[in-house]
């Protein structure tokens, strides 16, 4: 199935975003971030990694808030090299960031088609644009999930994987935000390798907060958090690029094993032959 390019919807952002920059702040013990200035460029796929409590969520909060030395970390976020314009901070409709967290879900009990239509319509576009956006969103979501979503299903009946897929597809295609933050959304069953491939076709900055080696290794670089500070920025190197498909295969084998145990099957060492 081919994916249409994202239809251009709604009012264009006042500022065309080319990059966002993180200017160093401090960790919990007061020591500075290891990187004085980190530029995230349009099209980058970035992971933020680190133990629980290492400051991952704080970093995305700084980004979401356009921190300007006014958050506990003292970091500054620049848009195209300058402080975020007032309208981005003041008018939520001009905020360039879409956020999907592990708590995010759909609350509406509408059929999927009607729900997507409600969302697409507030962008005040023509009927054909609305229909196109809905079709593209559904097609995108269905590439991410193994269980196809149909327009007649009710939102509240979607499985965890279907919900995550639709959240990501809707935020990527119908929302026109140039930056998408995804906070630990990998846990529910979505095809992550496929997701990364598809997301790369959209010219946006995708920032994953993740514990998943598969997503981390498919990113352009990963920001390593430790004790509240940016401890390192690691660009995915040649060896890691070679490792990525191996991790994917291992991960697929484990997923398959998980499914079989869930189904009530007996399993044996054959399941992991050649990898463990």
């Amino acid at each position, binding site marked *: 199935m081919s994916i249409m390019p994202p239809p251009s919807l709604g009012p264009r952002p006042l500022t065309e975003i080319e990059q966002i920059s993180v200017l160093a702040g401090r960790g919990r013990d007061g020591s500075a971030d290891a990187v004085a200035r980190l530029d995230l460029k349009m099209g980058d796929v970035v992971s933020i990694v680190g133990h629980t409590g290492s400051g991952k969520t704080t970093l995305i*909060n700084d980004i*979401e*808030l356009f921190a300007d030395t*006014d958050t506990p970390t003292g970091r500054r976020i620049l848009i195209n090299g300058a402080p975020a314009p007032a309208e981005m*901070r*003041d*008018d*939520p*409709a001009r*905020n360039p960031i*879409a*956020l*999907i*967290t592990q*708590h*995010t*879900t*759909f*609350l*509406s009990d509408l059929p999927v088609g009607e*729900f*997507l239509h*409600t*969302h697409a319509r*507030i962008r005040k576009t023509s009927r054909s644009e609305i229909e196109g956006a809905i079709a593209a969103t559904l097609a995108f979501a269905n590439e991410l999930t193994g269980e196809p979503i149909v327009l007649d299903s009710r939102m509240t009946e979607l499985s965890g994987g279907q919900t995550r897929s639709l*959240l990501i597809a*809707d*935020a990527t295609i*119908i*929302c026109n*935000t140039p930056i998408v933050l995804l906070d630990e959304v990998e846990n529910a069953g979505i095809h992550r390798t496929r997701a990364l491939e598809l997301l790369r076709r959209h010219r946006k900055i995708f920032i994953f907060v993740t514990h998943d080696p598969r997503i981390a290794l498919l990113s352009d670089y990963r920001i390593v958090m430790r004790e509240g500070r940016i401890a390192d920025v690691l660009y995915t190197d040649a060896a890691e690029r070679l490792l990525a498909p191996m991790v994917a295969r291992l991960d697929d084998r484990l997923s398959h094993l998980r499914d079989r145990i869930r189904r009530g099957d007996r399993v044996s060492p054959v399941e992991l032959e050649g990898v463990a």
Partner: protein
Amino acid sequence: MKLVICAGPATTGKTSVLRHAIQRLQRRGRRPAFFKLDVQYAEEDEQIARDFGIPTRKVYSGELCPDHCNVMVLGDALQWARGAGCDVLLVETAGLCLRCSPYVDGGLGIIVLEATSGMNLPLKVGPMLSLADVAVVTKIDRISQAEREVFRARIQDVAPSVAIRETNALHGIGIDPLVDRILATPDAGDNLLLRGNPPVGTCTICVGKKEIGWKSHFGVVRTLDNQLFYRGE
């Protein structure tokens, strides 16, 4: 004295928003006071007094409609806050009635709505939203971008001039601009007037007498310190 009146359905996070605001007002050298108006139970005043060391008070409206109670006691409450040496009075109302709105001209009116209450909520809350200056939307991390955008668009349909602040009150995200707005509000004068028209009714407030303070009303009234009593012929 700046006057902030905060309304919104129960459990939307009014207190959390105001707690973050109090913290930031103190950090900026302000002396806030907190006044809680509820129907029959509230303990926010005690927690806030304990946690921030600021003057707090509460009043139970009891038998009286809470928005009417607000009209009766707000004049006294401003006097109390002045007497306590404060320069910002934050009033948290019970916010039950979808027909009234507790805001007054000369004060900042804030409604707190939770994004999780469904995309149609902004269409249902009436003057409590349409007469507010600022709509604070809480729990934004819990819902899809789609619902967040639709919720926002529906607020703008109902209240085109209201400033929308999307917040995560749990983490204090998005509160600073609200505090900027509070500080930009002119000081409240002495003759405050209810902003909206109350519904058709039989008491002095219901029939449209909008002056704040029990002294301007007749029938069953109350003061901040005393329970209901009858005033008039």
